[in-house]
């Protein structure tokens, strides 16, 4: 997984996030802080987010892995590790 691929995943994640919370300025996101605490997302927002990330990248996300996608940094790392593995 190259840096360019990671950057592409990051951009996809932020694009999907904007469809859930359009008021969020991507530049203001602290990549290490939990989405919930930082952006006031609730469980319905988070499921919408995961469904759309799955649709955009084709990565399967088991329910028990949800906590591994709880911040921008964790999200990109998880998806980068799984992308391309079918």
């Amino acid at each position, binding site marked *: 997984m190259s840096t360019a691929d990671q950057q592409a995943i990051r951009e996809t994640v932020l694009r999907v996030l904007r469809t*859930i919370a359009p008021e969020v300025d991507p530049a203001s996101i602290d990549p290490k802080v939990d989405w919930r605490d930082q952006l006031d997302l609730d469980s319905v927002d988070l*499921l*919408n987010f995961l469904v759309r990330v*799955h649709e955009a990248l084709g990565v399967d*996300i*088991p329910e028990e892995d949800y906590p591994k996608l709880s911040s921008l940094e964790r999200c990109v790392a998880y998806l980068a590790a799984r992308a391309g593995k079918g």
Partner: protein
Amino acid sequence: MPSLGADMDYGTLVEWMVKPGDRVRRGDIIALVETDKGLIEIEVFDDGVIESLLAEPGTELAVGAVMATIGQEGQAAAAETPAKAEPPAPREPIPREKAPPPPSPPPPAPARAPRIPPGVAPPGGGARPRVSPLARRRAAELNVDLATVIAGEGNVIRVADVENTAAARGVPKPAAAREAALPAVPPPAAPPAPGERAAQKTVEERTAAMRRAIATAMTRAKREIPHYYLETHIDLGGALAWLAEENRKRPVTERLLHSVLLVKAVALAARAAPEMNGFWIDGEFRPSEHVHVGMAISLRKGGLVAPALHDADRKPLGELMKEILDVTNRARTGVLRSSEIADATITVTNLGDQGVESVFGVIHPPQVALVGFGKMVERPWASGGMLGVRPVISATLSADHRASDGHCGGRFLAAIDGLLQEPEKL
């Protein structure tokens, strides 16, 4: 102008989505209206053919004012409003601090309502593009003039088209030399179409208007409705175990949240408890045949809406979950529909995500009951002579004592508990 709740007196027509001659079917979206509850898509109440549009975009109309005439095919036109037959919208006068302006009468129907105003050159030629409500909202947020946006497939302006225009404006790219040469302000736009701007409010104005609408409805609720309150605690252990097993079988696009179980259980219990499901209107209780569960959704910019999940008692969990995802997303980012705003027969509020353990809500008039759920917490729980640790949730009922008594309310809450002990039957 349909009434979208007891607290609505006026709405401002933003845009027609149809033109004379268009065939419409019940439920089609025919207009976009700005109300105190935000931008709402107005659905037509009947099948027919649009004969004339009587209101110009930008006009504020009193509830009940005629907006358009719809004819049945082969029949003479009957002037009607897209108001709904059921539920009967209560129109009790609400005292206002200042006298409301006289209702603006709808302007006479122009002989031919020009759909494409002179001076607007639609990009790509042809008819003026349609604009998705989400794109319209995004354009307002980004301060993008819709007349400058190039429509995409099907002559429709979508969010991406608006964002592309904004990006082209704000970030000069080497490739876009011509754009970069332009001053860093929006290009001089063609004059906006009638109503294109007239009814657009800023985010702050919308938030303030919604605050006033909530204030009016809640003041009325606390002044008029003799609330009584009940609480019980429900062991969700079985339901959560079932849910985890179920979700293992489902792809991420089909997964369920425990909130869908709560909504479905309330809907089924409400069907069996007619005293909880309906409206208090003109001094009497009118039960509803349908169970439309209003789901309270907090908006991050401030405020609250409770759009209806129609016939929630009859829908499979997967379908209901998809509706919850869609409605929540549209409430927070886009536009709700008139039936969603007006139809709820009972409301559910869930503050579990916010970390509180119980909520005793205020009933949304003219409804007569509201069920509140709190955060799931692990608790020592005695059952069958054994003590264990179980995930427990508080379920509360705020009910209208004019329509029901505590005995009935208690049975209703117990029924919700019972339904959640058999999640596979939900």
